[in-house]
């Protein structure tokens, strides 16, 4: 019995010391990490909609299960982030929508698509930039060119392209449902 108590005490002491150290480090690094997270989201938002301030608004419509958050920018429009499944895994996408329900730009925040194919949707290279540019000015009837729309799919990544196109349409519809 005595031995078990001793073992427990030693383990507890070690854990307590480690926890204490972690607490201190967390206290020091948390503000820096938080600031970075916000800067990153802000950068993604700024790239899809030109506005100074984004305000998180309440959005819980069961018709749009993929929509994560909706931010409102006074006068400029809305930014919708949604998470949906691409070809390989989930894609998180920020879509800017102006007050006329036209897309003002898209930015892929997170994805795990095939490098060289679907991953081009997020790349900063020419292919990715040109792909994302196509969405600017589109409305909710947006579709890929092989389905009668005007969006050219990424080479060899029809599934990714279709998922993103559908997500953009969903985001526009979600904004329309607000008014």
């Amino acid at each position, binding site marked *: 019995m005595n031995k078990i108590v001793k073992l427990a005490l030693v383990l507890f002491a070690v854990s307590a010391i480690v926890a204490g150290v972690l607490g201190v480090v967390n206290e020091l690094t948390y503000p820096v990490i938080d600031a970075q997270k916000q800067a990153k989201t802000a950068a993604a938002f700024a790239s899809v909609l030109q506005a100074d301030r984004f305000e998180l608004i309440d959005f819980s419509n069961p018709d749009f299960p993929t929509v994560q958050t909706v931010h409102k920018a006074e006068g400029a429009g809305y930014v919708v982030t949604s998470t949906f499944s691409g070809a390989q895994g989930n894609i998180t996408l920020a879509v800017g929508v102006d007050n006329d329900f036209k897309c003002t730009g898209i930015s892929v925040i997170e994805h795990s698509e095939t490098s060289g194919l679907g991953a081009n949707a997020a790349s900063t290279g020419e292919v990715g930039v040109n792909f994302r540019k196509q969405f600017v000015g589109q409305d909710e009837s947006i579709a890929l060119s092989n389905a009668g729309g005007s969006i050219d799919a990424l*080479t*060899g990544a029809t599934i990714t392209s279709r998922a993103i196109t559908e997500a953009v349409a969903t985001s526009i519809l979600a904004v329309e449902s607000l008014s």
Partner: protein
Amino acid sequence: MNEKNERMIFDVTYQPQVRTVRDTQRIMLDVIIATLPIVGFGVYRFGWHALLLVVSSMAGCVFFEWAYRRLLKKSITIDDLSAAVTGLLLVMVLPPQTPVWMAVIGDFFAIVIVKQLYGGIGKNFLNPALAGRAFLTASYSGVLTVVMIDGVTSATPLGYLYGDSPMPYTLAQSFFGAIPGSIGEISSFAILAGAAYLIARKVIRWRIPLSVIGTVFAVSFLGGHAGYGRFEWALQNVCAGGVMFTGIFMATDYATSPVTISGQIIYGIGIGLLTMLIRYFGGYAEGCSYAILIMNLCTWAIDKACHRRQFGVSRSDFLAQKTAGKNAKKEAVS
């Protein structure tokens, strides 16, 4: 197409066995002869670049095989022509716009990584040409997942069949090869001519090709597709893609297909089923090369499961032996 039996095997025989003059070199030469109509048609359709690809890929494979074996001080085996055949078959399953350097990279992967690192001819567990193609498709998907003819990108017939827009090619066009596609896969007519030669020369047997093509036909006939008649759909599935070529020239590779008769049929049916699964449900329009690679990996298990019965042993004796073996194993475990 790699041959298991090396030349000397027929000389160390003590049973009254049939002697044959066929050896690896002759078999590989037969394969090259059988692909002549296919290469000819490919060059006619796609121009001299196709011929350049064939020649450089064959040269590349032979060079890599020679260089590897020379470097590791092993016997030089290039005169059995198996490396040349690998290079030839690799180009046959590549689209016509493939740059020469890309084919040579595929040669390197096929010969050095897939074939030689595992011990050379007859010891590889994947079909080298198909593994080379899979490597290239994964690496240069932007270039190789489309087909370009005269600088214009065309959707493949399978892309139409499983896509949203209607199929513009008739069955006759698919059969005779007036369709876009990989260099060696377009003309079912030329492929069948080559297959007839191979079967007549007894280089390959009909079992694997027939079970592959038959399964693809049966599954697509049963599965059907909106907007197509059942027969038309099934025949297009057989003729328009790579099933004909890979089923006849790739799936029959000696080293990577089962040796038992029932095993070969199971193997062929497996390839057909996987191909149709990938076509119906997969992300790629065409799946027969992946189907063959997957079944290559199962070959050892199929062979084990379909073990041949010994001659001169009655069925009851054979079964008794089997149970005795099983019991012995059990005892050894416990």
